């Protein structure tokens, strides 16, 4: 009896010490997950997720404090990539409602102040001082930072339209559609 108690106590103490030492010496300084997550984000620092920038959002994700669906410009693709990296299931049901957007400049209202070109992190707006600006739609990912700084409200955020080439069939939603 005493032998059993003694041996278990010794084993517990030894293993506990090893673990304690290991946690001290093998500790990882920076969370590598955080960097990997940041790598998946668009990096435009738009702040639509509610965090200051992409790195802060990545940090929150790494600590499991934020949902993977918050990145609006990244859309479904980024949400899925984040979910995969974190090994969670993304609830994409509310994500799809918003859909991807792009910025559009109403040229009659633009005064050529250049604020939006400075704000745009992906160089999607071209223009010169006192000249009308325009958005290169292909390079715009709808972060809406320009929308917020435009002094004349010349910028509109538009939904990326569904075209004949981007349209595809929706998931069949028959209530009886039981596949095994």
């Amino acid at each position, binding site marked *: 009896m005493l032998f059993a108690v003694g041996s278990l106590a010794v084993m517990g103490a030894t293993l506990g010490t090893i673990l304690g030492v290991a946690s001290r010496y093998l500790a990882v300084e920076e969370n590598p997950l955080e960097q990997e997550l940041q790598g998946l984000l*668009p990096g435009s620092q738009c702040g639509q997720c509610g965090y200051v920038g992409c790195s802060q959002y990545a940090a929150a994700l790494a600590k499991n404090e934020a949902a993977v669906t918050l990145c609006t*410009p990244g859309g*479904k693709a980024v949400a899925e990539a984040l979910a995969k990296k974190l090994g969670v299931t993304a609830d994409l049901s509310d994500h799809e409602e918003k859909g991807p957007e792009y910025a559009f400049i109403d040229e009659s209202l633009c005064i050529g102040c250049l604020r939006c070109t400075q704000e745009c992190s992906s160089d999607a707006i071209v223009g010169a001082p006192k000249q009308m600006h325009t958005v290169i739609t292909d390079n715009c990912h709808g972060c809406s930072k320009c929308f917020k700084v435009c002094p004349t409200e010349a910028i509109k955020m538009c939904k990326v339209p*569904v075209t004949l080439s*981007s349209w595809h069939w929706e998931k*069949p939603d*028959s209530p009886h559609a*039981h*596949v095994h």
Partner: protein
Amino acid sequence: MKLFPVRGGVHPEYRKERTSELAIVALPLPSTLYLPLQQHIGAPAEPVVAEGDLVKKGQLLARGAGPVSAPTHAPTSGRIAAVTQVTAPHPSGLPQTTIVLEADGRDEWAELPAPIADPFAADSQAIRDRVAQSGIVGMGGAAFPSAVKLNLGTQNRLETLLINGAECEPYLTCDDRVMREYAAEVIDGARIMAHALGAPQVVIAIEQNKPQALAEMTRAAAGIAAVTVVGVPVQYPMGSERHLTQAITGRETPAGKLTAELGVVVHNVATARAVHHAVRFGRPLLARVVTVSGGAIGKPANVEVPLGTLVSELVAFCGGLSQPPRRVVNGGPMMGQPLPNLDVPVIKGMSGILALTAEETNEQPSRACIRCGTCVTICPCGLVPVEMAAFIRKDNLEAAAKLGVTDCFSCGSCSYVCPSHIPLVHYFNYAKGSLAAANREKRKNDQVKALVEAKAARLEKIAQAKRDAAARAKAAAPSTPEASA
């Protein structure tokens, strides 16, 4: 000719007898034609006419834009009423830019390019240019620009031009009729294409349920050593490019490759006929033969229809609707696309207009999968539809992709046989579309990211330059610290 077995497939009820004995009739010229800019795979054409322009028959209305595209011509003479948004003949029901042409009834020809007198002596590039100019696309339904496909001979050593007269879809008889009535034109077009491709051999493959077409084509090909007409087994989807190639050559096209890399290029019979017209007479693609059939059509027929005719006018010509259809389909019942309504134009890839009754579609609510495995047995692509659909239902598209859902070409065989009426192909179409969209989104994100990083690097460089300048200024004039501010 020795044929090779092809895996899987089904034998749907063909119902071709409703139109197979009816000769092609020409549709009287409609008063208004609607010519969409996208009647083909690739970039939409760019209009070269504007509202109010007067055009003649065969005149260019919109030119091809970019390497994969096709122009559109005026099917008759008249006035451009508008270039506007019109519902596309597409299941989305989305509008697309369409040139509206009001016919003047004179049907006056424009000046056409000169016929190529001896195509077999002509440069193959000249033939390809002519085909591209004439707006010819794959008329079996895929509508891929034919000139691009005729270019395959420049990168590959081709042995065979395979002319696809299988017409394995139920109901459709337009290719059958074209072969029976215009056998010589088809064979001439095929030989011209073979010349352009540099393929020494032409094989014309026809399913054995079309004995008259086989006979007519064999007769027309008699004495031409390079042309062989061969009957292939009746087995859906024999008309699939890869499967037909396998049946004829015994070789399986590797995933992600083209049949051209095996030395085979496949073109449809109606395409061959269109090439004949373009090369011999300089006539662009202005009309096509459409099978109008289905239980809800008053008088089924094979009709030569000017492109841009509204489906509703075509149906009216065929005796109208005898009862409300359950589905209106562009193409065959297996791979055809449903049309949102009848007020959409006939386009180049439209081989059939089917107004199907509920009895014909036999749609039923789907029930639990009983894992009967029939879908696995019949899948001509060797996939496991039951497992893929289960993954897709659980939104695990990645697992479905791993099982090869992107290899599926939506032939419809699995949905057709499923005793539980599970819309398997619908699941796969959804998955393929969704995966492609995710792919596009990922590419865009990568592009934006590269731009963001470039801008950040540039700003950093500017900031660094400013700091350096400041430091230099500071070093040069230590007595005036405010200069660095």
